[in-house]
C-alpha cells in the first residue's frame, strides 16, 4: 500500500516561495490502479516524484507498506513522459538493467526480459538500439523495463503524453492488458480525462496550484476494459463529472494570472 500523509511541498523560486502541494492525504491499496488528473502545473508530477523518492516533501510523509519513503529504490518502478531509455543499450539490455542491478542469475534475467518483451509485443526488436524505435515503441520498452524489475508499485508520469492520439489509444489498451496479467499497484498521472477513466479503479482529481486532492472518485466500470467503453453512457457521465471539476480549476487558475 502506498500512502501520503499530510504532504506539503514548497519550492524556492528566486526569493519567492512557491507552494506546489498542500496537505495531500491519499491511500492507494495493493493492486489498485490509481490515476491522478489535474490541470497543468498543479503539482501532480511533484507528488509522483515524492512517491519515487526523487523529491522530498517539505512537510508530511509518504509511505510504502508502512515504511517511510526517503530515497529512490527498485521497489518503486517509474515510467517517465520523456524518453529515458539508455541509448547505449539495446532493447533487451535496457529491460535487463534493473534485474542485473539486483544481481539476479543471468538465466532469470533472460527469463524476465523475454517475459516482459513478449507482454509488450517487443520480441522482434530485442537487438535494436532506442534510436531505431518510434516514440510508442520507446514507451513500451520503458514499461517493460520498469516491470522486469518486479516493483511493488509502478509510478507512471504522463507516459503517453508525448505520443500521437492513435498511438496513445494503442498504448492504453496495451497497458490495460498488461495490468490484467499482474494487477500491479499503479499510480498514474495524466491530464487526459478519457485516459484516467479508462485505466483507473480510482481517480483523484487535483485542484490548481497549490495542488490538493479536490475529489476522489471510484470508477466502477467492469474489467477487462477496452476503448469501446469510452462511448458508453456510464463512461460519459463519469467524464462529465470530472470535466466539470477540472474546468472549475482551470478557469479559476486562468483568472488568477
Amino acid at each position, binding site marked *: 500500500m502506498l500512502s501520503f500523509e499530510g504532504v506539503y511541498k514548497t519550492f524556492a523560486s528566486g526569493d519567492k516561495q512557491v507552494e506546489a502541494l498542500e496537505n495531500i492525504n491519499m491511500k492507494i491499496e495493493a493492486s489498485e490502479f490509481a490515476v491522478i488528473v489535474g490541470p497543468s502545473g498543479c503539482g501532480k508530477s511533484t507528488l509522483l516524484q515524492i512517491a519515487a523518492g526523487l523529491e522530498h516533501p517539505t512537510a508530511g510523509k509518504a509511505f510504502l507498506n508502512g515504511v517511510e519513503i526517503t530515497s529512490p*529504490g527498485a521497489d*518503486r518502478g517509474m515510467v*517517465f513522459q520523456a524518453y*529515458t531509455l539508455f541509448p547505449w543499450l539495446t532493447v533487451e539490455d535496457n529491460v535487463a*538493467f534493473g534485474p542485473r*542491478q539486483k544481481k539476479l542469475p543471468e538465466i532469470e534475467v533472460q527469463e524476465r526480459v523475454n517475459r516482459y518483451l513478449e507482454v509488450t509485443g517487443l520480441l522482434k526488436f530485442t537487438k535494436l538500439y532506442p534510436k531505431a524505435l518510434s516514440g510508442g515503441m520507446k514507451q513500451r520498452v520503458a514499461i517493460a523495463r520498469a516491470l522486469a524489475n518486479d516493483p511493488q508499485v509502478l509510478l507512471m508520469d504522463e507516459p503517453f503524453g508525448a505520443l500521437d492520439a492513435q498511438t496513445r489509444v494503442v498504448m492504453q489498451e496495451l497497458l490495460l492488458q498488461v495490468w490484467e496479467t499482474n494487477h500491479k499497484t499503479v499510480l498514474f498521472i495524466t491530464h487526459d480525462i478519457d485516459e484516467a477513466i479508462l485505466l483507473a479503479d480510482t481517480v483523484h482529481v487535483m485542484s490548481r496550484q497549490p495542488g490538493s486532492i479536490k475529489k476522489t472518485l471510484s470508477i466502477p466500470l467492469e474489467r477487462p476494459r477496452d476503448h469501446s467503453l469510452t462511448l458508453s453512457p456510464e463512461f460519459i457521465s463519469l467524464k462529465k463529472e470530472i470535466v466539470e471539476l477540472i474546468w472549475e480549476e482551470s478557469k479559476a487558475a486562468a483568472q488568477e494570472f
Partner: protein
Amino acid sequence: MNQNKQPIQNNYMKTTNHELHAWQLASLVLIAFVWCLLTFGIKINPVFLPSPLAVAGAFKELWQEGVLLPYTLISLYRVLIGFFAAAIIAIPLGIMMATNKKTEGFFAPFIGFVRYLPVSALIPLMILYFGIGDFEKMAVIFVGTFFQLVLMVQDTVGTVPGDLLKAAYTLGADGSAIYTKVLLPASMPGIMDNLRICIGWAWTYLVIAELVAANSGLGFMILRSQRFLQTDRIFAGLIIIGCLGMLTDYLFKTLSKVFFPWYERLGQ
C-alpha cells in the same frame, strides 16, 4: 527535439555520399591547381613557395638523410604520451567535477586560471624545469591540453539528461553504478569528441615546443630548414603534420562509429 533538428538533417540528406566525395576531391584538385599555377606558371620565387616537384625532392632528401621517419616518430611519440597522460587524469577529474560540487569548488579556480595562460609563455619555465628533452615536450603538451580537456569533459558529463539518472535510480542503481553504468557510457561519445579536438591542439603545442628548443622532431626540422632558406623542407614538414592530423581525426571518428553505434549525431 526531433522536429528541431529536422531542417539541418534534411540539408545533409540531400547530399549523397558520391556528391560529398566529389566535393572533397574538387577541393584537393583546386589546391593542387593553384599551387602548380603559382609555381610552374607564374614562377613565384621558390624561397616563398617551392613547386610540388621541389617539395617531393625535399621528401626524398629527408628520407635519404635518414631523418624523415625518426623525426616523425619522435614527434608522434611526444604527442601521444603527453596527450595520453593528460587524458588519463583529465577524464576522471572532469567527471568528478561535473558530479561533485566540492570537487568542482576545489579545482575550478586553479584550472580556470591556468587555462588562460598561453602555453608558449610557459615554455621557458618548462625548459628551466625539465631541460629540452622529450619530457619537456610532453610536459608542454600536457599543460596545453589537460586544463582544456578537464573543462570539456566536465561540460560533456553535465549534459547527460537528468531523467536518465532518475530512471536509473528508480531501477535500483546506486552510487557507483550511476557512474559506471550511466554517466560514463552516456558521455563516452562526447568525451571521444573532446579528445579528438584536444589532440589537434596537442600537435600545435608540440611544434611550438620543438620550434623553441629541440634537437629532433618535425618542429625542429622546420626551424632548421628556415635558417637555411630550405622552404621546400618546411613544406614537407607542414604536409606531414597536416596529414598526421587528418589521420588522427579520421581514426577518432572511425573509432567513435565502431564503439558507439547507438549514438545519434546530427546529420546522420
